């Protein structure tokens, strides 16, 4: 049995045993050192060494833990790393599995702030050229902040006092803690998508650097940068500067001042409108005056002063024409009368009156007034009339004498 127990262990078994021993002996250690050979692997894991003047210690920080980093580690940075000593069984490498890491000598947040500021600055997120002008007369103001607390009430009060006509559209968001950044980002993005606000104010009241941290979050800063609607940031008090302030189109010292800035005084606008209309009136009056003087010049021209002069010669021409027309008309009438006389005499020859005039007469029955053309048309005793040139003779037929 003894022989058997002295048989060799497998590599895997040895590494496993060594790992257990190590992990049990050093469940949690804090190690201070300078980062070197830092590698941010595509998998999200970080690999590096901690070193001091004499020694090095291999370190690994898994992605899940690295997500909690607030600053970006890099070579030469002095840090405090907390973790477990362990052995990576596959290659037998002894290493510190880092769970937390903070900068040594400087506040963690302060370092993170500086690093992110430098990075975003390089990218141009704070470029003044990118900043949009604030609208002069916004009608609808979007606000991204906490729906509870003094800040939103102060802002509403200031806006309503200066301009009660303005709409205030609130997108409620947490302004503190880990849940704050996504909600702030959503507020800015959604208001942009909604589109019906002319201006966005994003902000919160004062607090510690930790309290204001959401406004240094890269996601929030980027959302402010990409907003098509102008953004006023209003975070904390005057002395508080966040990266959101740097990226915003305008940074107000306090939320109340942001509200003051956004709410243009309605009376002033009415006054401005009045001034513009008055200037238009003046301009228009000028036009009319000028038109009038041109008109006066026309009125005083010779043509206007002695219009008869222009008319006389025309009247003469007109007279001539009229006379000519008159003559022509008379001539034409005479010709017509001559031409008309001939057919008239022919017409007269055909008229029954002409026949009567030659001594003939016409006989008609009475009361029927049928023209008598035959002996059969009349019976003895029938009344008849005989029409002659100057009248008619009524008589009674006495006898019928047929031929």
């Amino acid at each position: 049995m003894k022989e058997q127990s002295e048989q060799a262990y497998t590599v895997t078994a040895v590494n496993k045993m060594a790992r257990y021993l190590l992990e049990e002996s050093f469940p949690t250690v804090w190690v201070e050192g300078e980062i070197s050979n830092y590698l941010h692997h595509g998998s999200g894991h970080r690999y590096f060494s901690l070193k001091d003047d004499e020694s090095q210690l291999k370190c690994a920080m898994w992605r899940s833990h690295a997500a909690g980093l607030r600053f970006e580690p890099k070579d030469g940075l002095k840090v405090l790393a907390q973790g477990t000593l362990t052995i990576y069984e596959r290659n037998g490498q002894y290493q510190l599995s880092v769970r937390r890491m903070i900068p040594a000598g400087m506040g963690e947040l302060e370092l993170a702030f500086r690093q992110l500021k430098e990075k975003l600055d390089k990218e141009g997120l704070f470029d003044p050229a990118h900043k949009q002008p604030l609208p002069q007369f916004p009608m609808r103001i979007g606000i991204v902040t906490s729906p509870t607390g003094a800040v939103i009430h102060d802002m509403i009060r200031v806006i309503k006092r200066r301009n009660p006509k303005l709409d205030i559209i609130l997108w409620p968001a947490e302004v503190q803690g880990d849940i704050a950044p996504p909600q702030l980002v959503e507020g800015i993005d959604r208001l942009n998508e909604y589109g019906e606000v002319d201006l966005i104010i994003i902000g919160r009241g004062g607090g510690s650097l930790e309290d204001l941290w959401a406004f240094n979050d890269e996601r929030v800063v980027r959302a402010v940068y990409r907003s098509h609607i102008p953004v006023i940031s209003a975070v904390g008090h005057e002395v508080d500067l966040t990266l959101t302030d740097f990226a915003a189109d305008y940074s107000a010292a306090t939320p109340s001042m942001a509200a003051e800035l956004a709410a243009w005084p309605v009376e002033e606008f009415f006054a401005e409108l009045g001034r513009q209309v008055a200037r238009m009136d003046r301009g228009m009056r000028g036009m009319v005056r000028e038109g009038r003087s041109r008109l006066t010049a026309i009125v005083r021209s010779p043509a206007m002063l002695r219009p008869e002069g222009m008319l006389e010669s025309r009247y003469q021409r007109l007279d001539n024409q009229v006379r000519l027309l008159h003559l022509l008309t008379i001539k034409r009438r005479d010709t017509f009368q001559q031409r008309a006389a001939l057919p008239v005499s022919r017409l007269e020859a055909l008229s029954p009156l002409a026949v009567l005039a030659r001594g003939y007469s016409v006989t008609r029955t009475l009361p029927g007034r049928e023209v008598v053309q035959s002996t059969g048309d009349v019976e003895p005793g029938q009344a008849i009339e005989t029409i002659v040139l100057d009248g008619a003779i009524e008589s009674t037929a006495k006898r019928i004498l047929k031929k």
Partner: protein
Amino acid sequence: MVRKKEYKDFESAVSRLEEIVASLESGELSLEESIALYTEGVEIAGVCNRRLTEAEGQIAKLSKMAEQFKLEKLADGEDDD
């Protein structure tokens, strides 16, 4: 930004008005053009005036549910300080 007719916002309305005033003051227009511009200017001023007079200044909370934006009226906030 879009446009409810021509002058969606006061910015564009006022800047158009300023343009009109400048043109009228330049005195380089014909009478017909002047009258047309003047009419437009008076109209813009009227629209601004009316829109402002009619504006109610609502306070509302915006939210988005199921791809729909929703505005929910909020209390005025003046009396709860």
